[in-house]
């Protein structure tokens, strides 16, 4: 997937003016947030439930290397193959090689964000392997070559007319259709054919259970189950932080994931695989390949501060909670990951200098952190990235700050270190801006202030500051009265 993180501003401006985007942003995140709240009502203490999820994820990460080893051991014992990939290229090549070795020319794919991160579809296509996304939303975005708008509904903002057009073009329908259900059922027919012909099913992994070597996937449509049932080869791509120790912990997280993501107590299908099909079984994969992909995560893991970002379970609740996402939708985030979780993950994977808008365009309101069932502290991470960016951190590819900014900061520190300077600077600012004041209000000012005044007024600056008034106040008593 093409990285467009540096186009955040342009894409955000475009999206804020797009009627479909605006319509769906009024509907979907609000609806999902309400459902989430209702689904959490069956916890005695929803806040405690969220903390328990955070504890499971933190514990899993703390023990990551040994959990991965245990997982691998048990997965191998179950008959699965395990391939460790340092980066996207290695993972993609392994999957392509496996496909070629087994004469696979058609692949059916279940939704997998890490495979989008790795650009797997493009690599498969380049290798001449026909690849079909089978989740309805992913299928549509694949045909339209668009990034996902929302984790739960990647194509939910796209109007039926556009879907009808692309379906017509690609032979999914043979006459225009405006009913969403009929469009969906046409996709069902079309993709059913692909499930039958696919020699390989590729899935992501929601959770990997170390104690049994089991893979867990969560879905509502059933396409992932098809990818695990019809083709003779199954490849499941797992980002290495997805492992948990026990099935019981996985169950706790499943409850939290489903409630947080769509407000369901449990999604329609949760499928668990332990090895390929056993001897004598009729269907299911003859070979199960598990690809454990690093792609920068072991580097992220090394710092306990950034490690926190790896706790994410991709539920998408933060998207629905975020007031910024609620204005701009998923496209401006420019990659496989959007919303607050994208803002904390993409900078670590792509480097800070390529993703500055992602960690700067945030008011630090904290709503995401408060509802995260996996314990990610988004505001803390974003502050960390801002600090590392200013410091031109080499490991995180920070950009440093401009001479102008450095000068302004130094001037501010100087003024703030000397009350006399401070008062003089304040008075100067007030005088300057007050030249534009009328009836107690300033409505515009040139230069750097333009960005404020384009939509907002400012009250006229007072003739005297607080510290000046305090001197005059008959009950003002100066500085020393604690002593």
């Amino acid at each position, binding site marked *: 997937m093409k990285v467009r993180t540096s186009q955040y*501003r342009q894409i*955000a401006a475009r999206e*804020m003016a797009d009627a479909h985007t605006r319509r769906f942003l009024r509907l979907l995140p609000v609806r999902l947030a309400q459902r989430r709240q209702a689904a959490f009502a069956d916890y005695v203490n929803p806040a405690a439930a969220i903390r328990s999820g955070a504890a499971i994820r933190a514990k899993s990460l703390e023990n990551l290397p040994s959990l991965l080893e245990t997982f691998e051991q048990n997965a191998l014992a179950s008959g699965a193959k395990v391939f460790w990939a340092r980066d996207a290229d290695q993972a993609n090549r392994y999957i392509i090689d496996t496909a070629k070795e087994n004469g696979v020319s058609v692949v059916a794919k279940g939704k997998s964000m890490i495979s989008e991160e790795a650009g797997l579809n493009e690599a498969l296509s380049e290798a001449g392997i026909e690849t079909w996304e089978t989740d309805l939303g992913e299928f549509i975005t694949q045909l339209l070559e668009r990034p996902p708008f929302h984790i739960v509904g990647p194509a939910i903002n796209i109007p039926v007319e556009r879907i009808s057009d692309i379906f017509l073009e690609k032979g999914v329908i043979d006459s225009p259709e405006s009913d969403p259900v009929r469009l969906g059922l046409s996709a069902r027919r079309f993709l059913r054919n692909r499930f039958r012909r696919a020699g390989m099913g590729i899935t992501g992994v929601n959770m990997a259970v170390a104690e049994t070597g089991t893979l867990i996937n969560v879905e509502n449509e059933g396409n992932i189950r098809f990818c695990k049932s019809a083709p003779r080869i199954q490849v499941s791509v797992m980002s290495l932080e997805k492992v948990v120790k026990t099935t019981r912990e996985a169950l706790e997280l499943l409850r939290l994931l489903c409630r947080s993501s769509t407000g369901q107590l449990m999604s329609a299908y949760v499928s668990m695989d332990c090895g390929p099909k056993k001897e004598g079984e009729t269907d299911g994969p003859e070979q199960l390949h598990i690809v454990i992909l690093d792609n920068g995560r072991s580097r992220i893991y090394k710092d306990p501060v950034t490690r926190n970002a790896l706790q994410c379970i991709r539920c998408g609740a933060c998207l629905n909670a975020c*007031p*910024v996402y609620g*204005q701009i939708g998923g496209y401006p985030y420019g990659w496989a990951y959007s919303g607050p979780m994208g803002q904390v993950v993409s900078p670590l994977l792509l480097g800070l200098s390529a993703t500055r808008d992602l960690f*700067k*365009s945030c*008011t*630090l*309101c*904290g*709503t995401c*952190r*408060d509802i995260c069932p996996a314990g990610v502290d988004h505001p*803390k991470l974003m*502050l960390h990235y*801002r*600090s*590392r960016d*200013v*410091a031109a951190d080499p490991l995180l590819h920070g950009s440093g*700050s401009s001479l102008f900014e450095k000068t302004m*900061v130094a001037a*501010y*520190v100087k*003024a*703030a*270190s000397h*009350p006399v300077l401070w008062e003089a600077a*304040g008075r100067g600012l007030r005088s300057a801006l007050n030249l534009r004041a009328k009836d*107690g*209000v300033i*409505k515009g000012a040139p230069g*750097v202030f333009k*960005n*404020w005044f*384009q*939509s*907002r*007024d*400012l*009250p*006229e*600056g*007072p*003739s005297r*500051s*607080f*510290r000046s*008034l*305090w001197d*005059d*106040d008959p*009950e*003002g008593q*100066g*500085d*020393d*009265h604690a002593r």
Partner: protein
Amino acid sequence: MKAVSLFIPCIVDQWLPSIGMAAADLLRRIGCRPYFRRQQTCCGQVLYNSGHTNAARKLARRFIVIFEADELIVSPSASCVHMVKSHYPVLFADDPFWRRRAESLGARVFELSEFMVDHMGATDVGARFEGFVAFHESCSHLRGLGLSDQPKALLDGVSGLTRVSMEGPDICCGFGGRFSVDYPEISTAMAADKAERFAVSGADVLILGEPGCLLQIGGYVNRHYPGRRVVHLAAFLAENAEGFRRSPGRKEGVG
């Protein structure tokens, strides 16, 4: 009488002094004696939030030195209090000496409504207002410091006042410090939504506890909904209390 050290945010000192005067007035009404340490200027929040951590640390050390002899420090801004309580320890994570001092100080810093209600048990300052008000819950009050009941209790203590519910009272107004000018279109859209929710709430006045939110929402409302008022909680309580004196040289802006 309890002596209380005033922690006046930079933005209040230089642009919205009436909020500071109102805070002092309220503290006197509930039996405290406020004093003002003149060396104070800025807690460093704006630098910290933009990643200028070393610069923020300089101002943080300065702040700690100025205030650490005080028993009680009170501010009419939750974001500034949050900076000191939550972020100063992070700033000094690798410096046990300064971190200890920061943590000790943080335990003695309070937001105004929290101090008035939780520490002094005061919810009635003798204010009276016949009308409907809505309350905006700022991010730093609600999610930063866990304060919500306290400012509402102060409003409910105003005789004649009816507090009406507004949709999405806890949704961020879009200020976020530099965010408001670095991402002005998104910030404006968030302010617009907040303003609209206020406009349809049936409230005459929108009350809030955060100076930044006041500039943001008040600034947008003044431009697009002229005549509607957005007021800081401290200013609202003080101006509606009996015997309220307006200090010379004060202006009534959007607050």
